[in-house]
Structure formats: structure tokens, C-alpha cells
């Protein structure tokens, strides 16, 4: 399992109902079902992942965060997880709204565009940054809505969401030491993880 998924699991209470959007091969929901006594389900846009996940016996549907969330009942889940997907959806703001309609908590992780290496590359080269996390050319990346941690905090404030917890995560997915200041985390954190409520 990816290390950042460990951090996500730490935020989820046992025996809760979880919807994982962009669940990939379902390793997070597999863990939640097996060892966390959760009722966890997934949505994934890539069919080969869906087949793999259902082939492992996991409740996963083929679907798209931009269109399929509207079909879930209000308050139907305790947690709605969107990991490393926010930057790739068409309407991130609406997706967040849907997540907090469906679930009591929203857990969102995304690669932080405010990281100093990206800032430096843009400053010195004047070109779209390329790093391990942002590994594709601007014209072939599925990431259409990159944002920084500060951007995300601002959006959450504007929408009236409460940030229950946040953390910066390093390249490998482990917790990074920037827990005091979001400004520092925004500069040094490669990935961001937020726990929101309404």
C-alpha cells in the first residue's frame, strides 16, 4: 500500500462507511474492509483497474468523479476519500461540494504545486516544472487543475469548510515534518493531505 494511504487510514475511524473516489486497484478499500471493519466502496475511471479490483472481490464501480457523485445519497457515507485525483477532475470545487454532501468528512490528498522545487524551476527556466510527482509534459498530463496548499486552504475557507486536520507528505508518501505552519508546508511539502468537514 502507498504510504500516503497509511496517513489516510489513520484519519478514518474503524467501522465507518467510506467511499474512495479514484480508488485505483482498490488497495485502500481492501485494507479498510479487511482490517478496519469498514464498509468501503470505490469509484474508478480506469476500466483495467476496476476489473482488477472487482476481480479481487471489492465493491468498485466504473465511474467518474465529475459525473457520478450526484447519484450517491446525502449523508450516505462517513468519509469520502479523494486521493491524488483532485488536480485531474474537471470541476474540483463541485467535486468537493459533492464529497461533503455525501460524507460527513472529506479526505483530500493532492500533489502540492507550491513546493519549492517547482517554484524554482518555473522561476529559473520559465517552463512548466517536471519532478517525480509532476512527471509529465504539460501537454500530456491528466492534471488540469494543479493547486498549492495555500490555494486549497483559501478555497476551503471560501466554501465554509472546516479543516479538521492537515499534513504535508513527502515524495514517498510518508509524513513530512511541517506540521506547524501551512506556509512552510506549502513551500517544503511535496504532497498535501486534508481532512475537511462542513
Amino acid at each position, binding site marked *: 500500500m502507498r504510504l500516503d494511504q497509511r496517513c489516510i487510514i489513520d484519519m478514518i475511524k474503524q467501522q465507518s462507511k467510506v467511499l474512495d473516489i479514484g480508488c485505483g486497484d482498490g488497495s485502500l478499500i481492501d485494507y479498510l474492509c479487511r482490517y478496519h471493519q469498514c464498509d468501503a466502496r470505490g469509484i474508478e475511471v480506469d476500466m483495467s483497474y476496476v*476489473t482488477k479490483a*472487482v476481480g479481487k*472481490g471489492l465493491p468498485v*464501480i*466504473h465511474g467518474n468523479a465529475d459525473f*457520478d457523485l450526484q447519484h*450517491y445519497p446525502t449523508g450516505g457515507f462517513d468519509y469520502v476519500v479523494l486521493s491524488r485525483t483532485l488536480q485531474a477532475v474537471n470541476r474540483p470545487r463541485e467535486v468537493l461540494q459533492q464529497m461533503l454532501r455525501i460524507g460527513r468528512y472529506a479526505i483530500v490528498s493532492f500533489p502540492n504545486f507550491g513546493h519549492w522545487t517547482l517554484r524554482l524551476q518555473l522561476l529559473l527556466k520559465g517552463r512548466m516544472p517536471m519532478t517525480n510527482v509532476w512527471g509529465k509534459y504539460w501537454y500530456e498530463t491528466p492534471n488540469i487543475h494543479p493547486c498549492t496548499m495555500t490555494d486549497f486552504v483559501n478555497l476551503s475557507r471560501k466554501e465554509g469548510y472546516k479543516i479538521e486536520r492537515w499534513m504535508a507528505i513527502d515524495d514517498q508518501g510518508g509524513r513530512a515534518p511541517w506540521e506547524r505552519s501551512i506556509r512552510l508546508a506549502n513551500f517544503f511539502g511535496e504532497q498535501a493531505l486534508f481532512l475537511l468537514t462542513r
Partner: protein
Amino acid sequence: MAESEENYLNSDENQDPLTQKIMFKDGICLENGQYLAPLEIAYQTYGQLSAAKDNAILICHALTGDQYVTDINPISKKAGWWSNMVGPGCPIDTNKYFIICTNVLGSCMGTTGPRSMREDGQKIGRWGADFPAITIKDMVNAQKMLIDHFQIKQLFAVIGGSMGGMQTLQWAVSYPDQVYAVIPIATSSFHSAQNIAFNEVGRQAIFSDPDWRDGEYWRYGVTPYRGLAVARMMAHITYLSEDALNRKFGRRLQERLKDSSFPIFGEVFQVESYLHYQGSNFVRRFDANSYVTITRAMDWFDLSHAYDGDLVQAFAHVKSRFCVISLSSDWLFPTSRSRVIVQALNRVGARVSFVEIATDKGHDAFLLEEPDLDITIRGFLSGIEEQRRLEHYAS
């Protein structure tokens, strides 16, 4: 009994002495209020029912299918229609599960249908065209009687494709406590105008055959072969995809023909002789009245009908786990129709998995080799088996 009728009886090759059968003397009350008695159900079972009776899987066959899921079909002498899916070590493993498949109500492979002798005292002989209108729900209710007979409290799964898929959905709605899991494949929660239109062309082909004789053909020792064959040919096209037909036949001509000749009559293209073969094969094993009865049952099907057209309401009380499967090149029951089912299930918070199998073989692909279909069904079954074990520990 008239001599011609005697011939019909003797030529009734769909009666196999090995078929398992059960008679319910009191019959069944149909959705239209009519009583159909007695009710006979022909079925096949594979594997062993566990002592706890918790490993039974009901398989629902498609429109013109039968109860011979696997092994050799005693009538056609060919392999069963799902022998690549069901059997020892197969995705639906008969070493683990007890498989039941009934011939549907209204069909002609041993379960009560238009071919059956009527015992309602109104007319002597067979039901023929007088056989009452039945629905998918009636078919499911008949299956339920058999399941009760086996004293199975809860089916581990109900699985079916096409019309069989409609039955699986009906099971989940009608008997929410009696089905742990449901796998509807290449199906829909309702029969669309286009679906009905295709069926109607088939029925009209049958009715316009001079041997149809108002559905009493058996009294005259004839059968509307040509009409039934045309109906089958037309339906068969809807089961395939354009790509599958192109790959198989393209525009290839019959061997004896030259490119320079332009005949109008006779078999010109290879795809034509293929359809003729499909049609003639079919009339040997299927009854015209049954075809009319069952296609009508499909046409009536709309799961949301009893709920003011609201499918979400229809699913409001389901408890089963669903694995909805669609086929990418199926244009008879396209993926969009499976999405309708999945979305309605999501709205009621049901546990649902949904996979679209990438295939260019069309609607019929669920009967053919499709590795992803095998992986999906095998994985889903083993997954829910584990979940059921976990639930047992928890409770």
C-alpha cells in the same frame, strides 16, 4: 387424439428422460391474476448442496436458453451454453457451489409452457396460443417455488445474462432477504421501445407464416418453421456487433459465386448462409408459441413500473450485493442501461460493483470466451464469500 397431434407428441424431442422435474399440483398465481395449474418445472442441478444449504447459486438462462448450463445438452448433444463458466474449477465452481438452473416458465424444455397439456377443463389438448401472458416476475416466482422445495433459505447468488439478468434484478427486488448476491449481465431494468420493436418484427414473422394457423399449428401437424427462423435470424443480428459480423464474414461471397455475377435469389453472401443456419437450427429446438410468450414477457418488463416509474423506489429495499456487468459492444442492452441500474442502486446506498467488459463481440459475448468476464465473476464470488464469513464472525 387426432393423428397429427400424436405425431406432434412423438416428435416432441425436447422431452429428455434425464431431465429433473418437479410438479406443483396447486400451480402458480400469475401476475395477471390467472391461475396456472398444475405447474411443472424442469431443472438441472450441478455440484452438492452443503449441509447448511448456503452454497446454492441460481443461474437464469436467456430468452432461448435452457436449463442445461454445463455438460452435454441431451437434446442438441452440444456442450451446455455456459460450460466455459460453470463447472469444476471454473469461475462458477461446481466443486464449491450447488448450481440450479430451471427452464423458465412459458418455455418449451420441460417447464409448463404453451406446449404443455392444459388441465383447466376449458379445452382439450395443449395450451398453444391460449397460454396465459406471463411476466419476468412470474418466472421468478416459479423459480422461488423450486428454491423453497429445496428448503434453501437464502441463495448465495443469482446470476444471469440478458433475460436472465432481468430475472436476477427481479429476484433482488421481490425477495431481498433470499439473495445474498446478484450478478446481472448484459441486461436492463426495462425493455425499451427499440427492444420491443425488434421482438415485434420477430413475432410478426411468425404470425405471417401460413403454418402458424392462429397458434394451433400442432393440431394440424405443422409448425411455422419459416416464420420462427426469420424471427431468430433477425434476433441473432441484434446479438452480434457490426465488428463481429465483419470479422467473421466481411463481404465474402459464397464459394460457388463469382464476383461478376449479381444474383438476386439464393444465398449470395456468406453471412446469409450463416443466418439461415442459425435460423434452421433454432426451429428444431424451439416452439413458436413459447417464443411469442417469452418475448412478450421481456417486453412487459419494467422494474420501475410498480413504483410510478421510479427505479430508485424499486430498489429501496434491496439487501443483496450487486455486480453489474455490461459489454462494451452490446447494442441490444448497451452499457448506458447498466449505468441506469448502477446509479439507482447507488442512490439507495446498495453495495454495487460495476464492470464494463471490453469486447467487440456484442451482446452474445457473455456466452463466449471473455477472460475479463471470468476474472470479474470469479473475483466477485470469492470476495462476497469472504465478506459473508467476516459477517458471520462479527455476528
